[in-house]
């Protein structure tokens, strides 16, 4: 159970407060309701570029990191296709420094040409390091546009094309900031040994005068229901053949989302999962196999990926995989298997709540979904899932026409 308080400033900023008297540290977590899905198709990679620019100095403070480090703290951020999340961890006695820094960059960025130039290069190096210079590094750049034709999930967070980043102008950057990085589009969580009264006073002091803007209206192209099987085979200089099966799955706010999560665990989370046992240990078709969900807010993907054993064929794998998926569609999951999956979920949750930063991030995430208290109801939701529901959702998911398959064929150097 994570206790919290919630209040809202006049400019629209939502604030969550979580009291923990046992730690000497404090966390300031800011979730901006903007991700790669909010980019226009000819200017992708901006949310992520912003994650970098937000450390390049703000309107009144030339350097973000040095004052925070001077206060004994550190910070970082991440961007997904849905959100951008910034966090600071520092000794609680210096919490005001983090509020000063975060509020100033919400007020406005410094926008220096130098900062844009350098972060552009850094992002290009990041693109090379993560996507180009790794075996199998580019598969998501290929898989997303295969699975999505209309919805902006069709491009990766880093961008559809690195040229978009190379060509980003200062005007583009300013316009993107103005639209998305303001109080009404943010959720702030303050966690640590600090009272609600003191939190209110400090938040009012630092964020109260930031001008209000309207929350941008989000009208995203809806992905049409997939009606045909899609496949793509690419050839790469990689050691082994690899496969990526993507099945469209329900959106984050639906109950079926949780059911799909359980299904992915049953298939390929652990070394006792169905795919691992059958495809790796028994049939020896693969050397590795995993199943997981993308966890996205709009309609996401359940992914099954892995690498073929030497000598195994994509056709053999395909036949064996579908026969396992058929079992989930026709037979009820045994009680023992369901309880195994549920106890793991309970354990993970208990460990996650161990850390102050995790608690703050989770509260913000659930607030974005509609109510921070969702974090406390999540486990009960999972525990309420029945074998009948699992079977019903498996029938929605595992249809040929709901599937996109990417194969990476290994070519020798």
């Amino acid at each position, binding site marked *: 159970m994570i206790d919290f308080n919630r209040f809202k400033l006049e400019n629209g900023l939502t604030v969550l407060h979580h009291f923990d008297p046992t730690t000497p*540290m404090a966390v300031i977590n800011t979730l901006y309701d903007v991700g790669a899905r909010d980019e226009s198709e000819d200017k992708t990679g901006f949310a992520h570029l912003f994650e970098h620019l937000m450390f390049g100095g703000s309107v009144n403070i030339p350097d973000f990191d040095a004052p925070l480090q001077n206060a004994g703290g550190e910070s970082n951020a991440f961007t997904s296709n849905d959100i951008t999340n910034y966090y600071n961890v520092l000794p609680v006695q210096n919490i005001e420094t983090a509020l000063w820094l975060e509020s100033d960059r919400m007020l406005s960025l410094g926008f220096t040409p130098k900062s844009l130039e350098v972060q552009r290069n850094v992002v290009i190096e990041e693109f090379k390091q993560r996507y180009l210079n790794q075996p199998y590094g580019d598969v998501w750049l290929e898989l997303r546009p295969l699975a999505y034709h209309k919805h902006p999930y069709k491009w990766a967070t880093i961008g559809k094309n690195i040229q978009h980043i190379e060509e980003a102008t200062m005007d583009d950057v300013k316009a993107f900031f103005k639209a998305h990085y303001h109080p009404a589009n943010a959720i702030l969580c303050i966690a640590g040994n600090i009272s609600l009264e003191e939190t209110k006073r400090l938040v009012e002091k630092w964020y109260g005068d930031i001008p209000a803007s309207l929350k941008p209206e989000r009208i995203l192209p809806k992905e049409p229901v997939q009606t045909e099987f899609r496949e793509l085979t690419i050839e790469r200089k990689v050691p082994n053949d690899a496969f990526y099966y993507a099945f469209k799955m329900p959106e984050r706010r639906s109950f079926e989302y949780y059911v799909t999560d359980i299904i992915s665990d049953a298939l390929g989370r652990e070394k006792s999962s169905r795919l691992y046992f059958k495809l790796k240990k028994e049939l020896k078709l693969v050397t590795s196999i995993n199943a997981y969900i993308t966890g996205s807010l709009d309609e996401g993907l359940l992914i099954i990926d892995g690498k073929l054993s030497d000598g195994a064929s994509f056709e053999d794998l395909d036949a064996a995989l579908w026969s396992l998926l058929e079992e989930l569609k026709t037979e009820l999951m045994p009680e023992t298997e369901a309880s195994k999956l549920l106890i793991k979920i*309970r354990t993970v949750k*208990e460990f996650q709540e161990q850390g102050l930063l995790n608690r703050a991030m989770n509260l913000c995430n659930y607030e974005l979904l509609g109510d921070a208290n969702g974090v406390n109801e999540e486990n009960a939701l999972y525990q309420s899932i029945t074998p009948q529901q699992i079977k019903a959702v498996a029938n929605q998911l595992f249809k040929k026409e709901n599937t996109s398959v990417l194969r990476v064929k290994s070519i020798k150097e």
Partner: protein
Amino acid sequence: MSFRSQQPETKQVDHISFVKPQIFDITQDVKLLWMQEVPNETVRLDLFFDAGITRGGKSIPAIVHSLLLSGTNELSSVEIHEKIDSLGGFLDTDISFETAVVSIYCLREHIRPISNIVANAIQELSFRDNEVEDVLRSMKQQYAVNQQKVKYVAQQQFRKQLFASNTDYSTISEESDYDDISLFSFKKFWKEHYLNGLTRMTLVGNLELDDVDALIDLFGKWAVDSKVNYANGFEFQAQRLDFPKDGAVQCALRMGRFLFHKSSPDYIDFQVLNTILGDYFGSRLMSNIREDKGYTYGIGTGVMDMNETGYFVIVTEVGKEVLDKTLHEIKFELERLQTELVPEDELNLVKNYMLGQLLKSADGPYAMLDMYNSVDMYNLDLSFYDDAIQKVKNITAVRIQELAKQYLNFEDFLIITAG
């Protein structure tokens, strides 16, 4: 001037409460450390073995490590994992130079049954043919994938060269290691380094004393029966070696040299120098090579602790076309530390940052146990940290310059590039 231009007042961290775990002697040299005050249901148990990668030829330690839960005469690996999963347990295993660790994470109600399963799986390990083949097949593929990663190649070659004077430490994996199913040597290694290789146990969790006794009874029989010896006195050659890779768009760089053991009087002072140079986001290497030049996504430095010694390393991946410029900037930053005194502002910032990080590393029972363990393993105690606070607070720019002159000569480094 707007009130926003002025940083709010800050206070330096001046006190950190270090909490000592309860300590149980399993044998004269092997102990269990227990942190009991945990405010929730979670438990972590770590078993440390004298089974690091330097303990056997070829890839034997890594292979045996991967085989630990691969089945007994009664149970297959899937059945063992099925049992652990059914109790909500997570296993995490790690193998480094001088140590191998098996960790169990679970809820406290399940620690005893899960421990029984793990203990039985390791004790009765049967090296079933099909399981051994499966593990080797996966490891061989992973090896091939790793060979395509410039970072991995640089790391392996760095190790090979830095530890060149000692074959146990310098041998790196080869593809053929995974073709040679040498059951006899696997079994020998397992008996010598696991069944007689437990060097330490650490435990975090709100358990009863009975539980702790039971865990000691269960795993204590594997305690090593004589003092473990680790290598020392390595010699290496300062040189640059390049490992080209066609088609790579980035080059991985590792450069380093030997330093000293964690008990050295220079250790903490050097950590301040290390932080200034490359161990935080505002470090000189990050500011210059990432934030000013945009040559890389990241660059960092670290002090690596070993049982008898320690070494220093600089790690990055940079655009292939700017590799030489990067090396030039690294040299420039090393020399700047040797010739100019670190300005007071920067030194104060690093002091404050380091004290804040120290406070964070002592936050909560999990962090505190790790902190205690990371000194106790090297025969030091918590006074190490009290001493660290004082040393960080009192260090001067002159002292930092002295250390830079002594330890950061560009010519003294081994430099490996891949890409």
